[in-house]
């Protein structure tokens, strides 16, 4: 029916799909940091330039690419979505929806911080990093909707 809203299952599956894309993008960026000798393939211009961001001191902490944070973060979000899709509602005293929302907020704040660093410190934008941030915002929006629907749903 037109205008029919997506079900809880649809939204959770959408979170899982977005998280898989997030892992792929973060994984690609981590691989770029390790493997590429010079040019990155996502250099659209001198400002939209993954190479410039990758070569900055912000691209790694203690020799570990920052992109691994994205791989881990999206992995956690994927795990929460898969648990919820299997019908699990709680992990110990924590609700799965609450965990999904909490990690989506942490991921979005991390992405926001790194985007500010790109704009104001490195002065170049890594478009794949921005795509990763957008994926996290999308997951945050869905997680927010899911937690709201639980709060307002009849007992």
């Amino acid at each position, binding site marked *: 029916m037109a205008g029919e809203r997506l*079900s809880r299952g649809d939204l959770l*599956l959408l979170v899982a799909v977005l998280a898989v894309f997030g892992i792929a993008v973060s994984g690609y960026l981590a691989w770029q940091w390790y493997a590429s000798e010079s040019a990155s393939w996502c250099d659209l211009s001198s400002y939209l330039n993954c190479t410039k961001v990758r070569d900055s001191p912000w691209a790694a902490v203690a020799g570990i690419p920052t992109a691994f944070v994205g791989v881990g973060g999206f992995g956690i979000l994927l795990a929460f979505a898969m648990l*919820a899709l299997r019908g699990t509602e709680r992990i110990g005293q924590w609700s799965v929806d609450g965990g999904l929302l909490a990690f989506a907020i942490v991921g979005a704040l991390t992405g926001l911080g790194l985007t500010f660093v790109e704009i104001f410190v490195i002065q170049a934008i890594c478009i794949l990093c921005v795509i990763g941030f957008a994926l996290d915002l999308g997951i945050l929006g869905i997680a927010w909707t899911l937690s709201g629907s639980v709060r307002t749903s009849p007992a």
Partner: protein
Amino acid sequence: MVMKKCPVCGVSVKLENLERHVKNQHPRAAVDVRSAISAEEAREIEAAKRPAGPVITAKGTRTIAIVAVGVAAIILIAIFNPFRGVGPSVGQMAPDFTLTTSSGGSITLSSYRGAAPVFLEFMDINCIYCIQEAENTLPALYSAYSASAQFISVEIKNVAASEVESFRSRYGTTWPYGMDTTGATSRAYGVDVTPYFFIIDRNGIVSAVFRGVPSGGYAAYANALNAVSG
């Protein structure tokens, strides 16, 4: 809903409730209920006990498929960038240019046509890989081939000529550095990353292209220069 007869009293009981029924109704009966249940029935019991997952609708599946295709397209465009400028390929004429050099002179590519092959580098003095090449590889290459080839570097960013001169003296890269302040030359060569190298034969034809530092390092440049220096 699968029903099964109780092995003690013969009453039909839901399969998943059979074990509990025997335990509660016939606590003294020496019956091993599990042995009376087949493997397939055991799987059905497990499935019935598992909490039901949320429903995924057909509309949701379609929506998710559309979103997935859209996101995948955006990521692939960002990675492979089909809108990237296209420079000359091997076998094509190298676009001519005239640039002011960092030392205040002028350099024109076509002036070397018929005279010498050209080793052309597009670079940026702040690019870490350009610095590494200037530090480790290019001066040695210049020493070996400066008698048979013309070396030209082009700074693709709009930096001060004095900074490029400092770079040259710091790394001993004494050949001319053209200043592509408008970006027109970089665009003509499809330069999207630095360093980017073109080996041009004495007829002005591109003989080799290296996008980024070649994996073969010095040998890759030397082989390409040997091929046009004969």
